[in-house]
């Protein structure tokens, strides 16, 4: 087999808040799809037949074991993606660079440093075993990437990615139908005719946007949300399965269930008991750290997590 791809997600429960950061969690969808799903789509686009997603919380030796096993089974090259960024890398060009240069390990850098993406040769994985995988920089070549990159480590960077996507500053295209210029509304969403929408904006599957709601400033509403009467969303993202009470003015914020992070003031609040926000529906279950097998044409779980395609 030509190539395998191992994607390492953020540690622990992918829907939980990342350690040391704000409300941000890696499983947040960006206009309908998580960053993990977008990475896997890119890898699939490369024609990679073997894709495995593992949790960073898993013992590193398990990851190493997977890679060595693949190498033993004849996988020639392994693309290792440690998720920490969204980067629109031309993976074909990366493979060409690696192949033509006859490099054993190629690591991808942007102007700020390494992006956590490495391409490793089979011989390197088998020959150097643990050292090669633990320390891919020890004898690696450098692939400099100058395209669109955003490091996802906080709610602020998440909002930046949403705005960049809605403004067309990166290659992310929202799911759903473009009903007018830079306004994407999923076919299954309900939007009352009185809703005022200022482009660009995104409204995801099964979202309910009630009468007299105003949406502006690159706001996004992910799947299964309910925005109640007369509320205004301004430079705000509403994450899946969130209810927002009537008559509110939500500005420069990201809302996830009962929690709101206001980016302008750097404040995180739980407004569940105040009755202003609520978690509704059944959020998709999270998974443990073990890889899960899925068929090549199977849709990835929306909440991210693990998937293995073979």
């Amino acid at each position, binding site marked *: 087999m030509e190539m395998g791809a191992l994607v390492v997600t953020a540690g622990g429960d992918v829907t939980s808040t990342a350690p040391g950061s704000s409300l941000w969690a890696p499983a947040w969808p960006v206009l309908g799809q998580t960053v993990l799903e977008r990475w896997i789509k890119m890898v699939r686009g490369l024609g990679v037949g073997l894709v495995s997603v593992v949790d960073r919380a898993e013992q590193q030796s398990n990851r190493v074991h997977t890679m060595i096993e693949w190498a033993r089974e004849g996988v020639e090259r392994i693309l290792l993606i440690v998720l920490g960024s969204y980067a629109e890398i031309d993976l074909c060009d990366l493979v060409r660079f690696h192949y033509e240069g006859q490099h054993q390990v190629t690591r991808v850098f942007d102007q700020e440093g390494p992006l956590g993406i490495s391409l490793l040769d089979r011989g390197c994985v088998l020959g150097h075993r643990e050292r090669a995988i633990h320390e891919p920089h020890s004898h690696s070549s450098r692939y400099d990437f100058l395209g669109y990159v955003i490091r996802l480590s906080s709610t602020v960077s998440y909002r930046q990615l949403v705005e960049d996507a809605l403004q067309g500053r990166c290659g992310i295209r929202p799911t759903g139908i473009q009903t007018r210029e830079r306004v994407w509304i999923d076919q299954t969403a309900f939007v009352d005719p009185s809703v005022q929408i200022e482009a660009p904006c995104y409204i995801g599957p099964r979202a309910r946007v009630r009468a007299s709601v105003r949406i502006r400033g690159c706001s996004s509403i992910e799947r299964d949300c309910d925005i109640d009467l007369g509320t205004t969303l301004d430079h705000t993202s509403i994450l899946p399965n969130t209810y927002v009470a009537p*008559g509110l*003015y*939500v500005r420069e914020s990201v809302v996830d269930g009962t929690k*709101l992070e206001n980016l302008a*003031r750097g*404040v995180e*609040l739980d407004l569940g008991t*105040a009755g*202003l926000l609520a978690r509704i529906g059944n959020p998709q279950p999270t998974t443990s750290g073990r890889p899960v097998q899925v068929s090549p044409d199977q849709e990835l779980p929306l909440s991210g997590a693990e998937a293995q395609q073979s």
Partner: protein
Amino acid sequence: MPPSPVTVMQLPDLSDPSAHRSFLREVKKFMDSSRQPRLIVDLSTVGQIAPESIDLLLECVDQAERSDGEVSVAGASRETEVILELTQATSVLNIFPSVLEAANGSQPQVA
């Protein structure tokens, strides 16, 4: 023309209905006895304002409007500022960083 009378009050304990009633009585008395009264509510000891307290502030605004007066809040925490903005209470309240600035009649904060 004499300056508008100013009074500074703190929000009552929400769990005490009599304190709540007494607070509103005091506000009404102040508003009724003054022309263009200015009530300043000191929020400096409030960590995160409760929805009931916002209702109380809006009752104060209602009373003030009958006397051509105004209500300001001062010393709100960042959490309280977010909630005041979220509930759109900032559209009827003047927001000041401190009681002193509110009393001096400085320009209110932009919500």
